[in-house]
């Protein structure tokens, strides 16, 4: 089926079988391998992408259902090639990753949180990443990374008070 997707601000027209998940379409058709295939049945969260700004699981949706919608993958978060977003940088700085398999999804889940909540509590952060499984870190440094990024983003480009 012919399907139009806007991924990371680029518009693509792809030909997919209805049973092709959004995850497989992103990875195999568009070559965007930052969304990871983990459990492929909605349990691990490794395939998280943003759909019209909201974190969703790309394995729990067929590509045809995303026709005409806007998708952001981890590849779309970097400001320029070779650079890191504030969140990505915070993950490096706090050592919020080990094997890295869950990391793109963790960052996208955190990105969706910070877009709506610039000053999250620890509980808010834990809740936001509760659908994303990490088998290495024990989560503590991931939570630290999100809190650090939130702090930095709050301090950035703040308008001067009158």
């Amino acid at each position: 089926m012919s399907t139009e997707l806007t991924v990371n601000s680029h518009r693509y027209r792809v030909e997919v079988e209805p049973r092709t998940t959004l995850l497989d379409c992103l990875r195999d058709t568009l070559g965007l391998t930052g969304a990871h295939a983990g459990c492929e049945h909605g349990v691990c969260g490794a395939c998280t992408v943003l759909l019209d700004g909201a974190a969703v699981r790309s394995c729990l949706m067929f590509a045809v259902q995303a026709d005409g919608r806007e998708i952001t993958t981890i590849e779309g978060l970097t400001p320029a090639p070779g650079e890191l977003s504030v969140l990505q940088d915070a993950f490096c700085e706090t050592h919020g990753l080990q094997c890295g398999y869950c990391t793109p999804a963790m960052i996208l889940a955190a990105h969706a949180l910070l877009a709506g909540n610039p000053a999250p509590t620890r509980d808010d952060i834990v809740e936001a990443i509760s659908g994303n499984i990490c088998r290495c870190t024990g989560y503590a440094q991931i939570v630290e990374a999100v809190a650090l990024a939130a702090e930095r983003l709050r301090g950035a480009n703040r308008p001067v008070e009158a």
Partner: protein
Amino acid sequence: MKAAAFAYSRPSGLDEACALLAADDGARVIAGGQTLVPLMAMRLARPTRLVDIARLSELAFVREDTDAIVIGATTTQRAAERHALVRDKLPLLARALPWVGHAATRARGTIGGSLANADPAAEIGLVAVTLDAELVFRNGAGGSQLRAAEFFLGAMVTALPAAGILTAVRFPVWRERVGVGFQEMSSRKSDFAFAAAAAQVALHPDGTVARVAAGIGAATETPIRLYAAADALQGTRPTPDTIRSAVTAALADINPMADLHASADYRRRLAGSLASRAIAEALENAKQSGGHVH
């Protein structure tokens, strides 16, 4: 973990959706797909055609009606969770929604999808049974509605006709001041519950119970409203002991499920504890907040 092949249709209206379903016994409705897609990935479900109703705008709404809040079937759980009418008028649903899956599944999962799927552990179905909600459906040119307790027949089995489409759910709103409580136990947050309980209480100005609705879910194949417990507590000033005995008596005849993770006996005891806690929480909530005045 790849679904079997199927045909896909995105009808432009409810009539067309009904016609597509009626024309093919193997066709199924998809809205958010947060349960259907994994079932298809595991090939536990093999629909021949998916009829995608997620974009039918006529089914995505939250509106106020006489003594009720009506929620369209394709309203996402996230949209309902954030809606001012749900927060202000349906505090029990607002209290339960954060327990549904995770933020990433609530962004796609719908209110109607959860109800039509009828997982015993689903929180929305528990709230619907506890508040005696009405489920409205279309079937071809006709349509009807069912009380939540009549809608749920068993685990993943409902009274919805095979070619029917759930269109809305009507939650009664109490006029008195109310307090709400919601309790759930699972092996990890947002995993399938072993048992859950919901309660809504309205108090008289003197602090005695004017009305109470309590229900349990996940322990049994379908959610159950605990009418006997409500009758026992009505008009009283409940204490932990009277709540506990009212709940224990109301649970005497239930038939809990059992699996590897939780035995029937454990689920019965857990349901009793959680229902008692939910009622106590609702009472406390009603006292503290002064309740919700409508």
